[in-house]
């Protein structure tokens, strides 16, 4: 085997999941055509080269990096908190199904509230600060994780629970050795669903309130009619989302290497 170091194996594992690079052609053609066709200084459709300049301007003025940091940190912290609380509550609900059934409709009702709608509520309750921003992200990201965890915990195969009983495992051991490992794929799926929601909500808060972050930069640029910056930041957000998703996909693949593969519905 040519790949001897673990990281090399994981890299190879990750790469096989990527689609053919030739698929980037439409994007490249689009950007290329845009660049060539926009020679005049159109305020509405500046060419991609201007976007780069706009970003450089932002970066040199020292505003890009802190904004990027702010958004990233909020996302990270928010997700960690959402995972911690969501997994905990989810496991609790899943392990006590009668409780789950009782709280069920209430949770369904809360879940039906679209995450963006939570933002104005949070602003009203908590004002315009970082704490509010973090709270909203947690509240938005928690649902997929909580629901996935609780449903998976409820669905732990009864045979496995019988195994736990026949080995006379204590409640804690049963949780640690049987339930938790069974639930890990569902938790990861929940995180994967929560990621885009968290990104959207973070950006939304920043755009609405101009609290420090990429979204704030973006709306600021729009208000100042700095269209190259707006497009540049859009690309930046796109790359950021892509990066985050792929990092997570690799992380998930590595973490789940020991689990039996599940049929994935979106795998071409």
């Amino acid at each position, binding site marked *: 085997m040519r790949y001897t170091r673990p990281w090399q194996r994981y890299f190879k594992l990750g790469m096989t999941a990527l689609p053919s690079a030739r698929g980037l052609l439409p994007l490249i053609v689009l950007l290329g055509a845009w660049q060539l066709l926009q020679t005049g200084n159109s305020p509405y459709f500046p060419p991609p080269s201007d976007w780069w300049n706009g970003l450089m301007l932002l970066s040199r003025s020292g505003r890009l990096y802190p904004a990027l940091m702010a958004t990233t940190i909020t996302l990270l912290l928010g997700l960690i908190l959402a995972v911690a609380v969501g997994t905990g509550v989810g496991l609790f609900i899943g392990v006590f199904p009668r409780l789950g059934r009782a709280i069920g409709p209430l949770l369904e009702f809360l879940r039906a509230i679209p995450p963006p709608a939570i933002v104005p*509520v949070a602003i009203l309750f908590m004002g315009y600060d970082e704490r509010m921003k973090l709270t909203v992200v947690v509240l938005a990201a928690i649902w997929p994780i909580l629901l996935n965890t609780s449903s998976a915990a409820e669905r732990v195969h009864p045979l496995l629970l019988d195994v736990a009983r026949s080995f006379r495992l204590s409640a804690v051991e049963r949780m640690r050795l049987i339930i938790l490992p069974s639930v890990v794929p569902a938790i990861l799926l929940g995180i994967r669903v929560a990621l*885009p929601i968290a990104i959207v909500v973070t950006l939304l808060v920043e755009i609405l309130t101009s609290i420090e972050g990429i979204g704030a930069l973006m709306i600021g640029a729009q208000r100042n009619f700095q269209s190259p910056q707006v497009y540049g930041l859009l690309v930046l957000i796109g790359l950021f989302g892509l990066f985050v998703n792929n990092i997570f996909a690799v992380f998930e693949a590595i973490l789940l290497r020991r689990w039996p593969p599940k049929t994935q519905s979106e795998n071409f």
Partner: protein
Amino acid sequence: MNMNKGGLIARINWPGAAVLVFVGLAWEAAVRSGLLEYEYLPAPSAIALGLSELAGEGILAPDITHTLISVVIGWTAATVLGISLGFLLGLSATARRYSLASIEVLRPMPGVAFAPVGLLLFGFSLKTEMVVTILPVLWPVLVNTMAGVIGVHQRLYDVGRTFRLGRRDTILRIILPAAMPLIIVGARIGLGLALILAVVAEMVGNPEGLGYGIVREQQALRPDLMFAYIVTVGFIGIVLNAGMLALAEALFPSFRQLQGGR
């Protein structure tokens, strides 16, 4: 359908309903008695009153209409485009090879990030909402349509050939119906997404409709009206979803059965 009274009663989630009612009542009581003194937390009754106030003043209906128009236009455009492209990509492996990576790059783009772009191009108008709505709604429709077409069993192609169907007939009479369950799934996801995006666009972009209502009442420090708007949005979401399901059942009677198995 035979549903005896005993069966119906047994099927209702009594503990769940009880919890809902209890929470509602407790919330109401807590606010009225002054136990919960959050300045901005209205009692459920206040929210209901707020709803009737909005409806009475003739504000609610136009807002609902505006948001619905935005949703319908955006969703229709995205669905038409998504099904067409999804079909093409589903049928041609070459087309997939030369476009999937681009789709994967564009897919994670959060819809809200398009709002400043929309504002830049169109200012405060419905078109801004379109900019926010169309692209993100396109993806689930496209991806699900593509999956539906790809998933058509090889055997069905064999049947098409043994019955000597031409290309056009194969697409219309075999591939399209076979892919329908997944196409419908994609369209449904898209519809829910279109609603959320329209609301978001109205919050940060175009000051009209339900989304703007939420933000406006938040800034006006009228939490009862703000929650009234939020409840309305949720309700519309439920109605749209149910409507879509009913339409799917009407057009495609086997939909439910065929959705699960493949």
